[in-house]
Structures are given as C-alpha cells and as structure tokens.
C-alpha cells in the first residue's frame, strides 16, 4: 500500500475541461464554465488517491474527464504509456475494461428493468471477456466477492437497499477485471452504518485484486481513512497534493487549512474549545472565476500579487505540491500566519442590538 513505490499508472498533464453555456434559439455561446482548469498529477499503481473539494469544484468532472467519459478541452491523460486523449472511441473501447467507475447514486445507476445478473454480465458481453456458458458462474463469483448471496442474480434492483445496490454497482465495475477504478462519491448517498461497510469492502477488494482507486469525495474523514495521498481541489484547480498523513498533520495551502479546520470531530470537549477557521463568503462561480489565484477573495493571506498572478503548481517538498504565492517553502507555517491574520466574523454585537 505504499504510495510512492508503485509505478505510475495514470498521468494527468494540464487537463482542462470547459463547458459552453448556450443560450437562445441559435445556441449562441454566452459563457464558459471552467469546470476543470489545468490539473496535473500522477496516480501510482495500487494506491488510492483521494480527491476532495466542495460541491462544484470540478472533482467529479476531473474523474470523468480522466476516463474520457468527457473529452477534455485540452491537456493529456496517459494510461501507462498510452495517451487516451488521442485515441478514437473504437480504440478507447479496448482499454475501457481496465478503467471502470462507481457512481454516487446507486438508485439511478442501475436499470430497474434489468436483473442484477444481467447488469453484472453486460460488461462481460460488451467486451466479450467471458464465454456465455461461464457467465453465470462469474456473476455468482462477483456477487460473493462483494458480499452478496449468489442467488441474488435473478432479482431486480428495487428489491435491494441502498448499500446492497452500491455493492451491485461495485460488482458490475469489477466484472471486466479492471486495474483502475474512479470512485465518484460512492458512499455519500448512504447511511453512516452502511458507509462503513462499503469503505471496508472497497479496501478489501483493493488488497485482494491490487486495484488502483481515484476516490472522489467531499467527506474529509472518509478520504483520510481510505486514501494514501490526497489532492485538494478548489474551483477547477488543484491547490495542494500530498501524502495524507502530512497533509492532515500540517496543511500548507490556506484553503486546505480552512477546509480541514471546518471538519467537526466526534469529541465534545474538542469541539467546544476548538477555534475554527471560518472562511467568509461562498465559493465563486466557475463561469466567471476570480482573477489570479482563484482563492484570493476568501483568503486571509492574500496580497496584491494574488489578485493578478496565477500561482504556480510547485513541488515544495518531495511528493508535496502546493499552488500558492505565500506558501512557497516548507518553512512557512500556514497555521501561525492564519491565526495572526484571520478575523472571525462578529455576530454577537449584532445579535445583542437586535
């Protein structure tokens, strides 16, 4: 499970995905949503790379664009040594079995008219991976692999709970023996006690089958639990990438710092005494993102330069990437600067006067 030992499986270089906003009868292009705007990173064989960010930051789009389910606007995605962005649909199809995806909502991603067995065997048929007479046996094997009874193959999705459906989706993703799986918020639609079951299942499968995950989620404690390295996204760009332990112990980017500080812990004493960093304002729209560093309007550290210049994506320590003008070397103590400059919004006087 060591992150840095595996060879690079997926290499993403300056990947961009922009969506046009079309309005009116002639579909005139009014604006562009810069959902993913230049991200670069590697995913190593056998690791789990967690990708976190708030809703609308482009983390799901990034996952889909890497798999070429969206064709990128520009940039490169290498799978082993193949450049996926140059391949045509037909050639890409030969590689698809190796790269699979698990979606967020297990209710809308299973066809209600297909039995579980049919859903799981469809990828095998599509890619002619398993001879017809052996498919039933393979379905049964996959079902037991994800912790469901093999006799479930003849049932329909409505007969299952959310957690069981997600297991079926996982079995379907495993049907063509993939190497790389994008998990796009696979547990956010599930209850807490069921979430834990699915997380354990994903980890067991990784150990057993040597899978590589890109785990997209907004829940930081889950990402911390499952990932080897964590990438933090803000408004279409990566702001920080690091092995999880160092990232959680000492976040460098001011956004990461605020994001981690915002996560509550199940500990009453800690929570009562915790001085939380409260960011002001909302995430800006990706249609018209702020100039320079996209985080600067909410950043307590922001200077003149941040409003003009886009910060470079720098490796400031081996394996540790940050995009920030202010934090440029590992010697900068973000939390100290933060506590000096950060102002907590003052509601109390207003409430008193009310």
């Amino acid at each position: 499970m060591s992150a840095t030992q595996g060879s690079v499986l997926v290499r993403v270089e300056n990947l961009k995905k922009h969506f046009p906003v079309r309005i009116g009868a002639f579909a005139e292009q009014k604006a562009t949503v810069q959902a993913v705007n230049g991200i670069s990173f590697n995913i190593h064989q056998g690791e789990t790379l967690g990708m976190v960010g708030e809703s609308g930051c482009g983390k799901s789009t990034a996952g889909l664009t890497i798999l070429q389910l969206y064709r990128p606007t520009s940039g490169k995605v290498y799978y082993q040594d193949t450049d996926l962005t140059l391949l045509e649909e037909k050639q890409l199809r030969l590689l698809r079995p190796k790269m699979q995806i698990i979606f967020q909502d297990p209710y809308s991603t299973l066809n209600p008219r297909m039995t579980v067995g049919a859903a799981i065997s469809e990828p095998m048929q599509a890619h002619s991976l398993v001879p017809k007479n052996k498919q039933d046996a393979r379905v049964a094997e996959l079902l037991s692999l994800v912790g469901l009874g093999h006799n479930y193959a003849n049932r329909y999705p409505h007969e299952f709970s959310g957690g069981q459906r997600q297991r079926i989706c996982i079995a379907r993703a495993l049907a063509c023996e993939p190497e790389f799986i994008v998990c796009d918020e696979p547990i956010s639609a599930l209850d807490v006690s069921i979430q834990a079951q699915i997380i354990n299942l994903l980890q067991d499968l990784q150990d057993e089958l040597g899978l590589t995950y890109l785990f997209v989620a907004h829940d930081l404690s889950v990402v911390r639990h499952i990932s080897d390295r964590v990438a933090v996204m803000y408004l279409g760009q990566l702001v920080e990438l690091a092995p999880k332990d160092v990232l959680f112990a000492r976040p460098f980017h001011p956004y990461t710092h605020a994001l981690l500080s915002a996560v509550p812990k199940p500990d009453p004493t800690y929570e009562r005494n915790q001085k939380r960093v409260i960011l002001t304002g909302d995430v800006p729209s990706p249609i018209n993102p702020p100039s320079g560093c996209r985080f600067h309007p909410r950043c307590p550290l922001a200077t003149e330069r941040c409003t003009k210049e886009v910060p470079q994506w720098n490796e400031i320590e081996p394996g540790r990437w940050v995009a920030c003008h202010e934090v440029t070397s590992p010697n900068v103590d973000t939390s100290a600067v933060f506590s000096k400059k950060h102002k907590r919004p003052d509601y109390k006087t207003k409430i008193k006067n009310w």
Partner: protein
Amino acid sequence: MTVLLDVKHLQTRFKSRKRYIHAVNDVSFQVHEGEALGVVGESGCGKSVTMLSLLKLLPPAARIEQGEAIFNGDDLLQMNSEQIRKVRGAQIGMIFQDPMSSLNPVINIGTQLSEPLRAHLKMSKADAWERSVQLLDMVGIPEPRARLSDYPHQLSGGMRQRVMIAMGLACKPKILIADEPTTALDVTIQAQIVDLVKDLREELHTTIIWITHDLSLIAGLVDRIMVMYAGYIVEEALVDDLYTDPRHPYTIGLFGSLPDLGGQQRRLTTIGGAPPNLEAIPTCCPFVPRCKYAIDKCKIENPPIKPISGSGESLHSIACWVDIRDRREA
C-alpha cells in the same frame, strides 16, 4: 431547570394502501428551558417525523395515533389548526433541511421574512421590513437591505439557509427546531452556519432541538443527545456521557462506523445488515437482527427505555436488556 416541552408516548404512523409504516413508536422526552437537545439517527429512524408531529406539520398520510406534548400547559397534539398556527413560528420555530424547497421561489426574501412578523407580532408592513433588515444583518448577510428584494434563486445555499434561520428566529420563539440544517451545505459553509447558531444561542438563550445524522457535527453544539432507531429512542444521555461511554449497541456501532480522525485504523467496525422496515410493531428489540450482544430475552421482548444503574442525576438511559459493560470484552 424548568421543563419547556414534555412529550409522552408519542406514536405516529403512515398509512400506505393496506400497510402501516410505524414511523414513531412510544417516544417520550423532555426539553428543558435553555438547553440544546440533539436528535441523532439514520434516515428513516423517525427523528424528523417526531418533530413534525409536534407542530402538526405531517403529510396527509400520517396520523398521530396517541401521545401528548405539553408546551406552556397546553397539549400541542390536541390543538386545532387555528391554535397550532399561533404556536408555529411564534413559540416554536423550525428550520428545514433544504432551504431551496422551503422558501417560496416567486416571493422575495423581504416579504417572506415579514410574513411571520406581521402575522404573529401584528407589525405594520414598514416595521416588519425594517425588522427584516436587522434580522438579515444579524445572521451575517452582507448588504441586508438590498437582499430583501432578491428572490431565493439569487442567493447561494448558505445564504438561503441564513435566511431560513432569520425566519425561524423572527418572532423570538422559545424553541427552535433545526432539522438537518447543514446537510445540503458544503463543509466550510456548514462551519459558518454552526458558528452562527452557537453565537445566537449564547446571546438569545433560545432552546434548540437539532436533528442530524452527523455525530461529529453536534458534538460541540448540544448539551444532551437522543439516539433514535426504528422509531424508538434507544439511548439518551448528556453529550459527554454519550461520547465517552455509549451504552446501547447501536450507538456503539454508530461511533465505530466513523472513520477515526487519527486516521490510523485500517478497518472500520460496522453494523451488519440494514435498518428494519417499519411495517410491523416489533415484538422483539428492533435492533436484534444487527446486534452482536443479543441474548434470548432480546428476541422475545422489546426493552423499554430506562436510566442505567448508577447514572444518578444525569439520567443516562438506554433501551437494552444487556449491560454492555459485562459483555464488551467477550
């Protein structure tokens, strides 16, 4: 501490075709003046339906079968629609989960915010508008006067939830019920809202009932917690007691399911199986199929909730036949 709200043996069920869904079963609890009470449970455990029952905001398919809820000497459940309307918003405010669907999209913020002020406090239109400016300012909305003529779709999710909070507090209610108010929001926005509610509570001394599924979120927010499962309260304790010494197997399971923030353990402890369907009132403990501590008695009789021995004043109560302390090592 004076008891502000006293709920006894509340039972609510839904009728769908020929079946009944027993959403809330024999739920009794008290809310004290000035306290913050957390209600925790997974989806479908009856936590929202319990609170909606109190304000008679249930959908038509639901019926309150029995119980009483004494508030200010009157039974909320016996009130007619005229009487309960005087309580809603004025005495007991409520904030809902999804601020988009609970604000009217075709009426501007100012008119919606003025409505409770004019209805309950009999304010003039102009006075209510002025008070609305103050309210928005108080919940941290910049340029409050300009925002009053905006429509809900012009505000972000966090801003809308602030409007909902302002609306819930407009008439200075004695109790504010918050039904998962941050679930639809991002974590940095959630932190803003929680921060605001903490300050509001300190300054206004409003009694708060906070419904959530997130044990981390309410740890620093509330004084006391009720854990619900399958329409029953299974554990009730002061917040520190619950987090340091949970006693019901379900509560213990919930804590085990949370990824450790130390991030060290490799596997999460899980609760096997899934929550039961609620079509029949169980004759056994509803948690039995998922419980690893179950004994024979659990399969025959549903345990009532009662204080655990030695809990004294704090009234740490569980609905369980087994004393976990004897079994934990086993």
